[in-house]
Each structure stands twice: as C-alpha cells, then as structure tokens.
C-alpha cells in the first residue's frame, strides 16, 4: 500500500459543501435563462391503449402557450439507454403502454399556463387489454405490449457454468424456495429537470440536465432528434441524488431540446414528484426461485436460479440488469455449478431501471435468505456457512472473473463479531434477533462499450491546478475524490484544485455515474493526467537541481529531492522558472483509462472479467420486533466493507450509511403499490422512505485491501452496501420470531399475520426440503 499520503485518505468535506450549505449550489431547476419558457408533459391515464387522435387545438389557443408537440412531430427514432434494447419514443407514437406514459408536451410562458394547457389536450384512446403481472404477461395469449415481442419477454438469458446436473446429483441436500422482491423507487430529493437552449446561428443545442450520464444523453439526443452529436452539448449542474434513476433519458430531455430548437428560446421542464414516482424508473420487482444443492458440511455445489423481472412498459436497462443479477450470483460465494435463467417481461406498469445495485439486491435477497434457511435446516451456523463458501483472491472463477483482492470472509467475521453473533444468534429473547448477509459488487464494468474515462490536468502560472473530468458528481462527491487524487499526486492541498466536471462540450469523455466505476475509472484517468503533468515538471526540475527524476517528490506545494527537503523549490517557483525557461505554458497532462479487459466480452455472448475489481461486504443487523403491533425496528446495522482504500473515509461512510438506510427502507418501509396499473402512493407522504426517526445505529467497519487497479488501491463504495441490508434484516427477523419471510417488504401486518399463523399451525413447515436432508 502506498504510504504517507496527505490528501488521499483524509476526511475532507466535499469541495462544494460550502455552496450547498449556503444554498448557492445550482441544480437544474435553479437555472434561469432570459426568455425562458416552461414545459409540461401530458401523460397517459390509461394502462394500455391505441392513440386514435390527439387534438391539441384548444391547448394551442390558450394565451401564453408557445408550442405543443406530440409523438407525430418528433423524428421516428427510438431511444434507449442500452443500445440493443431501444424501445421507447420521446413521446408515444401510436400506443401508450402504462399509466404515466409520455403522450404530448406543451411549452408556455409560465408553469401555471403550461399546467393548464396540458389539460386542454384531448386524446382519443382505444383501450386494449392490459396485463400487470410478469408471470401472466409471459403466458400464451397475454396482451402484446410491444409488437413482435413474443410472450412479452424482451430479454431472456440462460447461462450454465459447470455441470449442474451432475453436481446436484452429488449433493447431500437440495432446497428450492421462491422469493419476491418489491418495486422500490429511488426517490432522489431533486425531481428530474432539463433546461435546453438552442443557438440558431451555429445550430448548437445546449442542455442542462439532472443526469448521471451526460455523454449517453448527448448521444441519444443526437440520435433521436437527428442533430449531429457535435452540435449537442450536455452540461450537468448539481444533481440532487440519482441512485440510478438518472441513468436514463426522459421525455423532459427530448421535449426541452425539441422546443428549444423549434422556438429558439430556452425551455425548462421540471417533473412533479408524482411524475418521478410514476414516469421515471424503479427497482425491478422480481420473482425468484432458487434451488441450491449442498454437501452436509454446508459447501455449495450447485445452484439453479430463475428470475422473472417485471420490467414494466419499456426495457430501459433490461439486458444489463438481468446479466448483472446472473453474474453476481457467482460472487461472493464459490458456486462452481450454476444455471441462471432470467426473463425481462413487459407489463403495463411503471418502468424498471437501474437502481443502486441494479438487479443484484433482488438476487441477493433470495440467495442470502435461502442460505440462512438452509443453514438452519442443516444445523449449521449461518455465518460459518458464508465463510466456508467465500470466494478468495486469485482463485479461478467459473465465469472467469479475476479477483485480485477479496476481503469477504474477513468482512463476515468482522461484522459477526461487531454485532455479537456468538452471544446473540439464537439466544436473544423472543422478538429480538440478529442476522447477516453478504454481497459483492463490481467497481465499474469492463465488458461493455463506452466505458473509458478521460481527464485533463493543467497547470498555469497562477499555481491553480485545473482539472477537466467527465465524471458526473450526483452528490456522492466524485469531484472531491478526483481532486483528492490529483492533489495527492501533485503534493498540493485540495484548495488548489479547480475541477470542471461533466460538460460534454468541455470535458473529456466519461460513461457517467453507474456500476460504481467512477472512483476507479475517472480517478485513474485523472491520476494518469496529473502524473503526466508532474513528469513534465519533474524532468525540468531534475535538470535544474541536477537530481534524478526518480528521486523527486512533490509535497506540501514543494518539489524536492527525497530525504533532503532543502534541495528543492516551491511549486510556484518551479512554475515560474519553467515559464522563464521559455517552455510552453500551461503544462497540460492528459489521461484516459479503461478497465484492463483480459478478454473483450459482451454481456450475453461470453464470460470474462466483468469488472476491474470487486468490492465485498457483509451487513449484520439487530432487530426488535414488537410482538404486539408487528412493528420491526432496526436497532443496529454493522456494515463491514472491503472497498479497498478509502480515498475519503468521510464520504465512504456517507455512502455506507445512506445505503444502509436505503436498504432498510426496502426491507421494512417501501413499496410502490400498484393497483390495476396505477401507482397508489406516488408521493413522499404515501411512499414511506425512512425519516430521521427510523435511523438505526450504524457502525461502519473498514476491511482494507490494497487493490492493484484502483487509484491508491480504491474500490467501489457506492452501491455494494445496498445489496444486503434487506436480507440481513429479514434474517434477523427470523432469528427474532422464527418466521421465514419470502417477500419484501416486511410490514407489521405481515408480521402479525405470520405470528398468528405460526400460533395456529405450530411445527408444520411452509418451506420444504425437496430432497433428503
């Protein structure tokens, strides 16, 4: 591990923290342009229908309305965040597929008029039969949601690793259980927004958008609206949380751009909270059946996994999501033989998309729950079983992952110790329990296109270090982390760094904030850029000092010969003499970084190393179940996380704490309730994500490993922790009351029902072991 770090590893406040506490940090909706107009989208009130006619005449006549657009007006191009899965139009063309689908948009001189105007648009629908459950949608004869997609199954993958039949035959015990994980909304506090401006003189479109993926947005705007990519500039202002929901493109982006181009005026769209709930994305609801075969001692030999993801009306990230939930079944445990069958099924409901963990939390819920159930049936210790099956660094992997560092079994031990596993598990009074669950997550993805990051670092005479990065900071602090990396390399305090991030017109390419790859990918790019700057400077100084380049160090705004600080100069002296030596200023360094893919792979065709590195974590929960009311209180959550080296421990803790509370929400409080295709709780009042009063005690334990690939040994910390709080909590509930819950969320009502049922039919088990156990 690299020693003696000053800026990396420090608990520094975010660089923009002062702006944020002063209220001067500008989010998309905070931007105002001269002559700006306001847009609003008309949404479908029916779950499935043909659009027969749209009459916009009344809306157009309303004073103050400047434009109305429908799907007929916009080029006939489908968009989609995953190129192979494009199935959506900016505005519905001939059909609507869920309540909330984008039908038309208006643009007016103020938001009030825009709101009034959409209500004046008359749409004639011919309603079609709708389907709301993926298992029904998959049946023969179910309504067809997208023409030509058989059984509404837009993606199906089946993968087999090892020899599963043979392995099952060798098992001592085989268990099969079915689980369900509910839809969860990301609910970022900032509603989605876009502001577009068009310059007719040079044909340039600029759009400010609350997005996690500026460069993908640029590409899709260009493609959908048929304007050259070189003429589209996407600027990312401050983004008020995303959690994956802003890894997609929305009608607001296309419509703002469309109106701006048509009217030559800036146009802003801001979604209502209700639209965020209904018409953006949510975590896919999933039915999962897992069959696991084990030896008596708890070693997993084989697993068969079948998942039906309820995709809602469109694909969004469908193929990526099912691939992720498949591959990450093979980590953090050694599963030598695995069959995975995954289906992405359309229904007439809100659309599933990437959400913190992206397809994996659902799978983890099933697997981690089942591991506990099996351990219990085989009389094994649940923590031991996890340690026994843990994957280790350097091991050959069935899907050819390359695990350079792995702190998983360590994380299980540490989390178990911290929660008091030995003293508590199975020993607490009725109503109290502890449980744990593990997980692993990629630090970015290797096997897809468009995944390299670039950075530019520039030193001027003024001593300011200018960094250009395409990384999209959405509140996690990416800009701060990148700046810390640059500051560390250059031996300057972070105050000297000026970072410009995520402006496709200025900053180098970056795929965006997803797959937890930002620190590793954009961090490495920035590090390469600053190293190249440093090299230029060092070469020059080495000459001057008659020293070896290799002996020079940069520290505390000084550059000197290692071991003899007196032999050196300040950075600003160095820059000055560099300039007087008539060398070209500013000093510019470039870096770009892509995960070292040993074999180029794609999600569907081949196996291969999925990510440059993998983080590992275990969550351990202690719960209190009120036997009277059924209310579960998460008392304490320990999270032991191998995220390599923390570039900024305070920010890493923030990520872990946020993930724990989010995961708790999924376990106990949150559910997008849909009746006949209509979301019944599209508000912060009715969709109950945790408040201050639900906050558990959180203890974050670092399991440090020294990863060779991440910058300064860093791995991901943004998503992994949200994979297993839910199963940890539900496992703890089992420990508390002896009920195995198979469906999320665990509401007080379910607890009471289960306790009652348990009283009624003591001893008879609902779960069964399908073979000798």
């Amino acid at each position, binding site marked *: 591990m690299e020693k003696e770090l000053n800026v990396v590893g420090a*608990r520094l*406040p*975010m660089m*923009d*923290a*002062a*702006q*944020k*506490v*002063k*209220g*001067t*940090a*500008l*989010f998309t*909706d*905070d931007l*105002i342009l001269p002559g700006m107009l306001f847009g609003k989208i008309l949404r479908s009130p029916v779950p499935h229908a043909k659009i027969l006619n749209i009459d916009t005449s009344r809306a157009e006549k309303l004073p103050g309305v400047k434009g109305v657009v429908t799907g007929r007006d916009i080029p006939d191009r489908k968009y989609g965040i995953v190129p192979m899965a494009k199935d959506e139009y900016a505005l519905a063309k001939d059909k609507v597929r869920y309540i909330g689908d984008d039908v038309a948009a208006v643009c007016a001189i103020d*938001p009030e008029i825009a709101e009034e105007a959409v209500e004046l648009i008359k749409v004639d629908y011919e309603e079609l039969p709708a389907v709301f459950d993926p298992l029904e949608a998959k049946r023969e004869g179910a309504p067809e949601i997208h023409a030509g997609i058989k059984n509404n199954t837009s993606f199906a993958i089946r993968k087999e690793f090892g020899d599963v039949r043979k392995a099952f035959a060798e098992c001592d015990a085989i268990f099969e259980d079915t689980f369900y994980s509910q839809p969860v909304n*990301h*609910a*970022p*506090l*900032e*509603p989605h927004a876009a502001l577009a401006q068009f310059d007719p003189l040079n044909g340039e479109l600029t759009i400010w958008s609350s997005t996690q993926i500026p460069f993908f947005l640029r590409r899709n705007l260009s493609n959908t609206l048929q304007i050259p990519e070189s003429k589209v500039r996407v600027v990312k202002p*401050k*983004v*008020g*949380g995303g*959690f994956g929901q802003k890894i997609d493109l929305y009608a607001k982006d296309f419509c703002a751009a469309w109106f701006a181009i048509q009217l030559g005026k800036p146009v802003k769209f*801001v979604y*209502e*909270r209700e639209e965020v709930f209904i018409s953006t994305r949510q975590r896919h609801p999933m039915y999962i059946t897992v069959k696991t075969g084990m030896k008596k001692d708890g070693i997993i030999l084989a697993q068969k996994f079948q998942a039906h993801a309820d995709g809602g009306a469109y694909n969004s990230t469908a193929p990526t999501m099912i691939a992720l939930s498949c591959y990450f079944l093979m980590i953090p445990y050694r599963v030598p033989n695995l069959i995975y069958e995954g289906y992405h099924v359309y229904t007439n409901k809100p659309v599933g998309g990437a959400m913190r963990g992206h397809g994996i939390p659902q799978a983890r819920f099933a697997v981690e729950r089942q591991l506990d159930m099996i351990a219990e049936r085989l009389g094994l210790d649940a923590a031991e079983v996890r340690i026994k099956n843990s994957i280790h660094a350097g091991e050959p992997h069935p899907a050819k992952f390359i695990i350079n560092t792995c702190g998983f079994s360590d994380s299980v031990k540490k989390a178990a110790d911290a929660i008091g596993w030995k003293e508590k598990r199975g020993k607490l009074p009725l109503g109290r329990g502890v449980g744990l669950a593990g997980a692993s997550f990629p630090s970015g993805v290797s096997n897809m296109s468009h995944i390299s990051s670039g950075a530019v670092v520039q030193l001027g005479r003024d001593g300011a270090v200018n960094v250009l990065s395409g990384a999209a900071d*959405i*509140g*996690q*602090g990416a800009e701060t982390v990148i700046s810390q990396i640059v500051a560390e390399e250059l031996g300057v305090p972070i105050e000297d760094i000026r970072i410009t991030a995520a402006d496709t017109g200025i900053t180098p390419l970056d795929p965006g904030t997803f797959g937890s790859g930002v620190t590793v990918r954009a961090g490495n790019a920035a590090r390469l850029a600053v190293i190249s700057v440093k090299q230029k400077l060092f070469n020059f100084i080495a000459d001057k000092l008659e020293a070896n380049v290799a002996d020079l160090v940069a520290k505390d705004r000084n550059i000197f010969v290692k071991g003899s600080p007196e032999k050196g100069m300040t950075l600003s002296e160095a820059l000055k003499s560099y300039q007087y030596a008539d060398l070209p200023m500013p000093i510019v360094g470039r870096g770009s970084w892509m995960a070292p893919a040993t074999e180029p792979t794609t999600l569907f065709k081949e196996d291969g190393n999925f990510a440059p590195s993998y983080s590992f974590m275990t969550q351990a929960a202690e719960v209190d179940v009120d036997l009277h009311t059924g209310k579960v209180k998460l008392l304490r959550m320990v999270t032991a996380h191998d995220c390599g080296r923390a570039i900024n421990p*305070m*920010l890493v*803790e*923030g990520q872990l*704490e*946020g*993930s*724990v*509370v*989010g995961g708790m929400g999924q376990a106990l409080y949150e559910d997008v309730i849909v009746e006949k295709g209509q979301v019944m709780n599209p*508000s*912060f*009042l009715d969709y109950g*994500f*945790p*408040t*201050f*009063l639900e*906050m558990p005690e*959180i203890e974050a334990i670092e399991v440090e490993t020294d990863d060779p690939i991440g910058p300064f040994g860093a791995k991901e910390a943004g998503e992994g922790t949200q994979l297993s709080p839910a199963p940890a909590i539900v496992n703890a509930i089992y420990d508390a009351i002896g009920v195995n819950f198979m469906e999320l969320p665990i509401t007080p009502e379910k607890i009471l029902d289960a306790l009652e049922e348990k009283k009624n039919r003591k001893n008879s088990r609902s779960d069964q072991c399908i073979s000798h156990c």
Partner: protein
Amino acid sequence: MKQAIELNINGDTHEILVSPNNTLLEVLRDKLGLMGTKRGCDLGACGACTVLINGDAYLSCIMLAVDAIGKEILTIEGLDEGGDLHPLQRSFVENGGLQCGFCTPGMILTAKAILGEEKHPTEEVIKRKMAGNLCRCTGYKKIFEAVMSVTEQSGKEF
C-alpha cells in the same frame, strides 16, 4: 388578479407582484431568484422548502405568499453572517452532513428553528423535530451529528 405586496425577506423589503394563489416557494424561487429554497415534493411532505417565518420552520410550498405579509422571512441565503458561515452551516460542512445538498438548506433551517426553541435539545427532540426533513443520500447519521455538535458548543445564541 395580481397585487403588489411587500415581503420582508432576510432583512430586506421586497416589493413583488403576486397572485393570491402563488405559494411563498413560487415567489421566492420564480420571482425573486432565491434558489436556495428547494422544491422537493411541492406538497408539504419533505421539508426541502423550509423557510423560517418569525423564527419558526414553515413549509413554503404550502404557504401562500400573501400570508407572509408582515412577517419576517428567513431563507438559507440570509443565514450566513456577513459572509461567514453560520455555525450550523459550518458544522454541516465539517461533519459531512450533506451529500447531494438538495435537502441541506431545509435541514439547516429546521435545525435553526429547533435551536431557537430550546438551547440544548435532547437527541430525541432533535430527531423528532428533524424528522419532517427527508434526505435520501446520507441516512441522516452525519446530519444528526452535525446538529448535535452545534448544540454541544456552549453558550452560542442562534
């Protein structure tokens, strides 16, 4: 029907043309450009739009602008002290009590209202009263620590 009203915001008097159906949030943001007050839900359920009215924490998205006539309105923009961060603001920065920052102005103003009511509120009181301000990023822990650390500083008046 629009009418001209005067509002006292952050110590300054503003004359503005409003309709009775304009909320205070709309006036602050859309008419006065005071963008520190955030619109998270627009339906009184998240606290992002918190402002102080005569020192009390109000949700500006469910308050009429005309209802604020004659009252002292404090928004996040009026909190710092001659350019220096207010102790609460400083504490949020130093304790990492924010991530995306969208909930932050509301959190800070609510905390200020609480500390205006009781100098040394208990942990329980802080949690209870802050619980109308939603945050989806932090899990609340560091926000809580930020507020606690201010209450623990002795003798400060807020």
